[in-house]
């Protein structure tokens, strides 16, 4: 994908090309900047360096293998790729998912969201050169990865969900451990705030920087925390509830511009911090309502072939709306699996709002977008 600024190219500007590999970039991508002194005048974004042919790979393998491939949509938050595929397939096959499996899915999704937001905070800290908090954040994230290992045997590519449920039941004491981790992170958030969130240096680097206008949010199709930080209230969990999110009481945080203005880099940081708190509240509610029973629809085995039909499922991943259009022709392999990933819209918006910012602010602005190039390139 090449996103070019709509303005005509000015010849009096300095040309800077950053990437595809650079320490200030979150993943392989290329930025072509035209600088007026230290101010970015124009920007072009080029991606595609991480294309792995994921959608084609899914078409070449049996249905069950597609779940494992979906792990690689974004390995940091593997559960979201698996979940959106399972939801689409379950709609085509009219598969009933046991309530216990639904609750396990919510627990894993919210743990993944917390984990992803902690990694986002790590990127922000690295962008402003704050090393101390990085170690604290990664230490706490390890506790979540421990939970993934406990339930799925893997820390990243979980390959845990199945059509009609999950691959294994949670073990005794898992829920208690989830609550322990929530309690721990709740205490640690205060620590993060003391050390980092309202640190003078961090505020100076991230406040009033990289403001995204709500009009740009709408025109680029941005969703998720970046859109909500700009005041756009849209969350798939609330607007189009799935896997039983409508049975729980939770709020959707919106940007308030506490450190600077609504929609700036610091607001995006704060919003994710609030989303961590919100996810922990949600986990607490869900953990009280995990029914006893089956964790997998017994009629669905590993040889299950999806009947002919199509469906479109959407979920709220840690970065925004993740959509999946699945088509089955009744054969053992998918006919088509198409993905709509939130990072594509975030990339589309970059040339529009980085114009006018200083070059030294660019790493902070890019980190504040939480770009997932793996999911954008597929």
């Amino acid at each position, binding site marked *: *994908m090449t996103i070019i600024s709509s303005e005509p190219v000015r010849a009096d500007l300095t040309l800077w090309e950053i990437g595809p590999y650079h320490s200030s970039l979150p993943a392989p991508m290329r930025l072509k900047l035209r600088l007026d002194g230290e101010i970015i005048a124009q920007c072009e974004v080029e991606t595609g360096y991480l*294309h792995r042919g994921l959608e084609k790979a899914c078409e070449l393998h049996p249905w069950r293998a597609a779940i494992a491939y979906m792990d690689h949509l974004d390995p940091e938050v593997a559960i979201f790729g698996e979940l959106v595929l399972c939801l689409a397939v379950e709609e085509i096959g009219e598969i009933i998912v046991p309530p216990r499996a639904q609750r396990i899915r919510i627990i894993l999704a919210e743990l993944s969201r917390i984990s992803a937001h902690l990694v986002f905070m790590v990127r922000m800290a690295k962008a402003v050169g704050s090393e101390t908090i990085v170690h604290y954040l990664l230490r706490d994230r390890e506790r979540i990865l421990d939970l993934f290992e406990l339930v799925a045997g893997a820390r990243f590519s979980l390959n845990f969900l199945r059509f009609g449920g999950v691959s294994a039941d949670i073990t005794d004491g898992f829920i208690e451990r989830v609550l322990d981790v929530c309690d721990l992170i709740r205490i640690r958030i205060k620590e993060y705030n003391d050390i980092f969130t309202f640190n003078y240096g961090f505020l100076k680097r991230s406040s009033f920087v990289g403001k995204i206008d709500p009009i740009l949010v709408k025109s680029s199709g941005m969703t998720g925390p970046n859109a909500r930080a700009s005041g756009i209230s849209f969350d798939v969990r609330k607007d189009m509830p799935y896997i039983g999110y409508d049975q729980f009481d939770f709020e959707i945080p919106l940007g308030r511009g506490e450190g600077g203005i609504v929609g700036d880099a610091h607001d995006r940081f704060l919003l994710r911090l609030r989303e961590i708190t919100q996810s922990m509240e949600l986990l607490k509610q869900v953990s009280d309502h995990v029914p006893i029973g089956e964790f997998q629809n017994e009629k669905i085995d590993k040889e299950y072939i999806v009947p002919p039909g199509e*469906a479109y499922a959407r979920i709220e991943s840690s970065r925004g709306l993740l959509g999946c259009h699945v*088509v089955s022709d009744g054969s053992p392999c998918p006919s088509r699996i198409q993905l709509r990933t939130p990072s594509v819209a975030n990339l589309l918006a970059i040339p529009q709002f980085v114009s006018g910012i200083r070059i030294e602010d660019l790493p902070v602005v890019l980190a504040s977008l939480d770009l997932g190039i793996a999911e954008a390139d597929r």
Partner: protein
Amino acid sequence: MDKNALVSRLNKIIPGGVLETRRFGRSENTSIWIEAQAVQKIAMALKMDTEMKLDWLENLSVVEFEKVFIVTYFLRSLITRHSLVIRASAVPVSPGSEFLFPSVRNIWPMGLPMEEEAEEMFGIVFSLNNETQFQVKVNRLPENWKGFPLRKDYVFPSQFEDITHSRSFNKSNQKKSSL
């Protein structure tokens, strides 16, 4: 939202533009099948429709079914919260060749990356003014890559530049082995 009223409104603005309405999936709303040449006019009408205000192209998906390419637009409104699926189909003049299809990136700017991806993977050139220039931008695939990988008749090359491989990508083999 009354789908029949919407279809009649569209038929008034673009006579013959709407072909039929069909159910999409099991839980999604009805899909409206439209004439490929009327895509831009209908897209504009849906965006400007006072009742629907479909200001957001949530997703654009291309599916090949029996050599027919079906382009599906998943539309949504952030104002009215309505959603709609519209679909149009096209057939390439000859197998393996690129073909033109109306672009909606001037109506929904977020459609640009989705159209670019479909261009590269399916060889559908999304055009604003029925330009006859076939220039598929290459971003994901290597520069000299031949063919459109997501087409059903695509054959994986056994060699690309100096790289060779012997792995079979025959889907029919996969089917047999999984059965």
